[in-house]
Every structure is written in C-alpha cells, then in structure tokens.
C-alpha cells in the first residue's frame, strides 16, 4: 500500500479545472496549490503498479505540464521480500544439488 507525494505543475489559469479532475481519482488527495500552478497531492494506491497507472492518467491532461515525485513510502513492503519470493534478475544462485 504505497503512499506517494507528488507535485503537479499545471498551467496556472487551468489550476481549478485540474483540481476538479484530480479529486475524481480514487486514492488521490489534493493538499494544496499555489498561484504559479503547483499542486501538491498525495496518492494512496494499493500497489505501485496502480500508482503508476494513476500518474499516467493524470499526465494525459493537456493542462498538466509535469508531475514529479518527492516522496514514496512503501513501509509495508520494506520488510524485504516475502518468504520464498525472489527478486528477479538479482540473485542467480544455482540450485542446491549434487555437490
């Protein structure tokens, strides 16, 4: 259940429009915005994969100039991999067998 903090830069004159759009996304909370078109938002998504989808969808809007992550918490994922799980491409140990 990752939580991400993002800054969305939008065309200042379109800020209100985008704010309206953002609240439609499940898991997205707007925490503040300023006159230069910076929007501070938090995404609470069930997985980083979903988070990625949300970011992509927000990025589609023409008024959105950029989206930047400043924070990502994955504390329920930091315990290390679940038992038996492998990180692909990292460990290439051989299987235990004859000598």
């Amino acid at each position: 259940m990752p939580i991400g903090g993002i800054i969305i830069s939008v065309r200042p004159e379109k800020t209100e429009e985008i704010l309206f759009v953002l609240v439609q996304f499940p898991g997205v909370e707007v925490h503040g915005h300023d006159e230069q078109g910076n929007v501070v938002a938090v995404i609470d998504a069930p997985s980083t994969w979903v988070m990625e989808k949300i970011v992509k969808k927000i990025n589609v809007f023409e008024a959105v100039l950029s989206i930047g992550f400043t924070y990502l918490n994955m504390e329920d994922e930091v315990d290390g991999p679940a038992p038996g799980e492998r990180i692909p491409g990292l460990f290439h140990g051989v299987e235990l067998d004859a000598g």
Partner: protein
Amino acid sequence: MAQSRREFLKKTAALSAASYIGMNLPYAKAGVAPGAEEQTWHRGSCRLCGTGCRVELGVKNGKAVALRGVKDARTNFGYLCMKGMLFWKCMGHPDRLTKPLFREKKTDKFKEISWDQALDIAAEKFADAVKQNGSNSVGYYGSGQCLTEETYLFQKVFRGGLQTNNVEGNPRLCMASAVGGYLTSFGADEPIGGYADIEQANCFFIIGSNTAEAHPVLFRRIMRRKLDNKDVKVINADPRVSQTSRIADLHLQFDPGTDLTLLNAMAHVIIEEKLYDEKFLSDYTAFKSGKNETVDLEAYRKFLADYTPEKAAAICRGNMTADKIRQTARWFATSKATLSLWTMGINQRKQGVWANNLIHNLHILTGQLLKPGADSLSLTGQPNACGGVREGGGLCHILPGHRPVEKENLRNQVEEAWGMPKGRIPAEPGYHTMAMFTAVNEGKIKALWVNCTSPMQSLPNVELYAKGMKREDVFIVCTDIFPTLTTQVVNLILPAAFHFEKTGVYGCTERRSQLTVKAVDAPKGAMPEVWIVREWARLLAIKLQDPLIAKCVESYDGLEPDYALPKAIWDEYSQKLTKGRDNDLRGATYEVMKQMADGVQWPAPTEEYALTGGTVKKFVRGMDPMADSHAKDDKPYQFYGPAHPDGKLWIWLREQAAPEEVPDAEYPFYLSTGRIVDHWHTSSMTGRIPELLRANPYAFVEINPKDAAKLGIIPGDMVEVESRRGKNMLPAKVYEGPTQGMVFVYWHDQHPDRLINKVTKDAFDPGSKEPEFKICSCRIKRISGPQALTPFIYNG
C-alpha cells in the same frame, strides 16, 4: 493505530512535496512527528566490522523494521555506515536457513531432517572420528563474528570435552600478526589506548589500512578531527591510493612489501635527528635483536645505519623520496600526539609480526604512547575477533583469558575452573588454520565443525583446500544463517539464529565488550549456537561414554537459550577465567553492560569500576586499576603484560625481508586484495541486500593507467588475472589507485570467475601463522571488451 499511521504518512508525503515549492501546509507541525509509537528500540552492536558501533534495532510486530545509531556510544556517537544501516535486512530474507539439512555423501542432495536427528548425526560422526582416529582428528573452525559465549562454549567442549586444541577461526586470517606484534613489543595483547585517542591526536599515521572503506565510522572521526583542527596531519602509507588518501596531507606510495624498509628508515631519521624520547627509552624500554638478545640503543643505531632515507626511497619506489620519508618521521616524532592505525596491509603478510613490531618501535622510540592521543592502534576487522577469539580462547594456542596453551600452570587454572582433572587439556597447541586445512587435505581431520564463516571463499589459494573439504572421508558440519560456498561441501547444515535473534557479547578493537540482547525471534527452526553446542555435547558424552564431556555443559542444564544460557556462560567465563588476567572482565556483567550505552573496556575488575566505562588507557597508573595493583615502582607507566617478565617495552631490530612471492618475468605484477565499503567479507549477507549488492555487484581488478596503457586495457575490459595457483576473469577499473606494477582485486565476489582467493598465495608468517593475502605475483591480460556480468550469490 493503523489508520492514524497512514494519515501521518499522507501528511508526510504532502509535506515533502510542499517543501519543494515553498508551500506552507496547515499541519506542518504534526507532519514531522516521528509517529513511531508502535515501534520499540533495542540496543546492540553492529556486526559488520570491528569498530563496535552501537545501534538500536527498531522492532514492530515482532519484526525488525529500522535501525539507528546510539548517540551516547563512545564508539560511533550515533553514526552508521551503509552496511551497518542495512544489515538487519538479512533477518527476514527468504534465503535464511531454517531446517537442518543432511546428506551422507557430498555428492548427494540434502534432505531436511529434524533437530534431534541432526544433533545425533553430528555427535555420532565426531564420536566415531575420536574413537577411530583419536582426538586430533576433529576440529573446530570458528569466526570473529561469533558471540563470545559461542566461541567460549565451543572451545570448552573441544578442549575440555574432546581433548583437542584444534580450535581455530578466521581471526587467524586477519589479526594473528597484530597479536604477535603486541605480545612481542608490549608484552600484552591488544591496544594500549583506543578510539578516544582520535579526538586528541595531532598526527595520524595510517598504514596498510583503507579505513574509509573498512572502518567508515572511525574514518569519520579521523576526518572530523582533521577538519576541526587544521594543524592535524594525516599520513597515509599504502601501495594503493584509496578513499582514505582523500584526507591525507601526505600519501606514501611504495612497492608492496617494502614498508619494513620505510618504517626502519623513519626510525633512522628519528635517531639521526635526535627526535627520540630519551627519558622514555631509559625508563621503559629494552632493545632486542632478532634472536631475542638484549642489545642497546647504540646497536639499534648501527642496525639502522643502512636504512638511510635515500636508500629506502630507492627500494620502496612508487612516489617515495628521501624528503617524504624525513617529513613523515618528523611529523610522527614531533607532533603532540601521534596515532598509528593499520589493518590487513600490515597483518596479512609473511612478515606480519615484524611489520607490527616496526610500527610499535616508532611509538616506543618517540614516546608516542600512553599519553592522550598517542597510540599504536591495530584496527580489528571483525566485531568479535578481539573479544571472542583473542580473549575467549578461540585460537589453537590460546586458552580463555589470554593463556598460552603450552603453559602448564595456566592450563591447570582453566581445568580447575571447569572442574576437570589436571592434564585434561592437551599440552600441545592444535593445528593453526593453514595447518588445519592442510590436515583436512591429508585426511587427518575426519570431522570438522565450521561455524559462521566460509573457508571455501576466504582461505588463500582456496582451490587447494577445497579439495580436502570435498573429500568424502571428511565429515563437515556447518552452522550458518545463509547458504555459502562452504555449505556446498558439507554434510550437515545447521540453521543458526542471527544477531539480535540471540543474546551475547562482542568485544571490539579497543578492548570494549558490549552486549546485544535478543530483540526478535529467529525464523522458526533456526537456533542459537549455544543451544546447539550444549545439546550436541550431551549426546557426545553418551556416545563416547565420557562424563567429563557432559560436565562441560552440566551447569547450563535447563537454561533457556535466548538469555539465561548465554548469561550463565558469560558469567562463568568472565568471573572464573578473566579473574586476575589482563583482560579482567569481572566487572562487565550483563547487568552492567545493559546499563551502558556502549560497554566496558577491560581491565574492569569490579562492577563499580566497569560502570565508569572501564580502562581507557592500559598501563597508566590512575587510569588502569591493574597498573596500580601490579605496580613495581613509582613510575607512572607499569607494563604488567604477561609476555615481558622485565616489565618493559621492547624495540625490535628487524630487517627488511621480502614477501614469499615477488614479481618476475613470468608473473610481473604484484596482486593485492581487499575490501570495499559496501560489502562484508564473503558477501553472503551484504550480497542479499539489494542496496549493497547493486553498489558493487561484482569484483573489479584495479589497474594503474600506465600499466593499462601498455597492455591495451581500457575501463570495463575483461581481464584475466593469473598466478601460479589459479586465475580469475574480471572487469577492469583503470585509475590511479594501485602503484605501477600492482593490481588490486576485491575479495567479496562469490562467482567462480571472480573469486580472487583462487589466485592468492597461502604462504604465512612463521610466527603468527597468518597468511600473506596481501602480496603475491600474477600476470594480467586483456581477454575482451566489456561483457554483461551477473552478480552471483550462492543460494543452495
């Protein structure tokens, strides 16, 4: 609680974003509160080097989730290196061993068995070996990473129970020469001072140590000292320019093995320019020729006559000049306080003890000892090489409490403490490490217990000794937390509890003992070693029908293994076996150590004294209780060390002597090996932590640009490094690190192509028996351009 935690995190996330654009959010104050009510912090030591950093492990819902430094600890003052910050991630790793695994033959597949079966097999095999081939056919090979309680109990059962001194460990590979140096120069093992000298030193002489990478937190203290005091000088003497050189005022680069000449030339300058401390010499010093004959200053002066800075510079080569040697000697001798630091560059040598002696010589000669900031300080590589192995009886020739095996009265003291008849402990030292693995090769050792170390990677010329370990007539049991290259060649794997999953003491470089109390449960199935040894010894006693084996563990009956058992072992060791010895630890009880942010520096004969932190400087009256209780006269320094009956410090006349193997036409390069900041030893732990693995996923060969240009090697090229013993193929790093004519390889990599100990040489110091990992000759050639490589962590 969970909900509020998520709310807290969301606010943190928003604040983090807002901080970028200078936006103020209404809940700024709430947002940066630690929000860690559910988390508890448990104090202990780091286990990934000899510094002895104190840490607190954050535990939530029974699992380790975070780690932070302890700011009141006099070792690290709260600071952590990267390995230290991340090592706890090993705990929950899926590769953890959790079931005893057995195979009759090393060519069979392992089968999971129960603990009862496993202990029975281990006892059966050791008992069989003793019955059929005698006590000398079994051995223990341990580690400077075991807790003191573990090393002590293992050696007790082997020496007192099985009646063999075949008790060794990997500290033989790393600090045996330092032991030899301290004993022969100062009459007592382990440093006189400690880290507290760093903040008072005005000159640092760092030789044969890449402190920045091997002891990063101590390096921080040195760096801080230099930054805060512009007049502080740092001299780094090493054939390789390393990260440590970044803070050096002077880097002395020389051909590997010529440092004995450098050190003697420094002494030459000190004497020639009368920079020595005449009073210190007359009060406290004796001069010894190579044959242990007492000579005098005049003889020393004559001996040094040939080591002029000019001649020395020509022998040392590299960037050395006579002026640099003079400058170094002057800084060393005339600074208010000089602190020397070294590690494996000095110890892992055929002349390791001599090199240690020559550093001590300079300190004795100039009186740069015993006063604040001045010391001759050998940094230890492992967290418990000093405490567990040097003090706890973990080497074949020393019993607990710094007692040489061959001294009958000292053996008797140990026998008495254990309630054993006189003569129970054999009078002969056992096999030292290289002799032990040679005996394995020859089939003389029939049953070997390897604990918490991986000789299949860490022995020099390892392929030679792998042959022995693969023999079907050598039964090997291994206790560890992960599969290693060594578990490949064993019959029985016993899954052990990790640090913070059990309780015990580590003793770091500066005579400091620190307690780590269990904070989390080990994965189900993994057990603390002290429990394993106790249960095994009981079965051994039955199978060998020897009640004295049972007696080794009798007093521990019924104690739970997480705290009560190690505490009972520590109490026995500290109260009975360090009493009256120079490492007197009677005051360092669990109760005392639990109260300390850091720990206790011995000698610490009483609890009251231990609670002050113990002895910061040995041998100084008023600072060291034993200097007072053992005083022979009114002088402020009292050298009561057991190895020097005259109570003096000894300056040794030691000649330059060549390494075992020097470059020739066929193998024209020096090869040296070493550590890198991100990895620990054989990387079985650090290689499983993604942050650390990725930072240095494989070993490189470092080549001087001039040599690389001659051989047409550019960075990233695959290069073959070959010696008379074996070869590696590694990617090249081309930079002004190693001196011309020398290559350097990291030794953490487990991949068969990059396992550098296949190439290193197994010559060893005749005194300390420590192998010469640091110097051999090799040839190199370019094989191809860059290749995609895969990190390799053996994963049974």
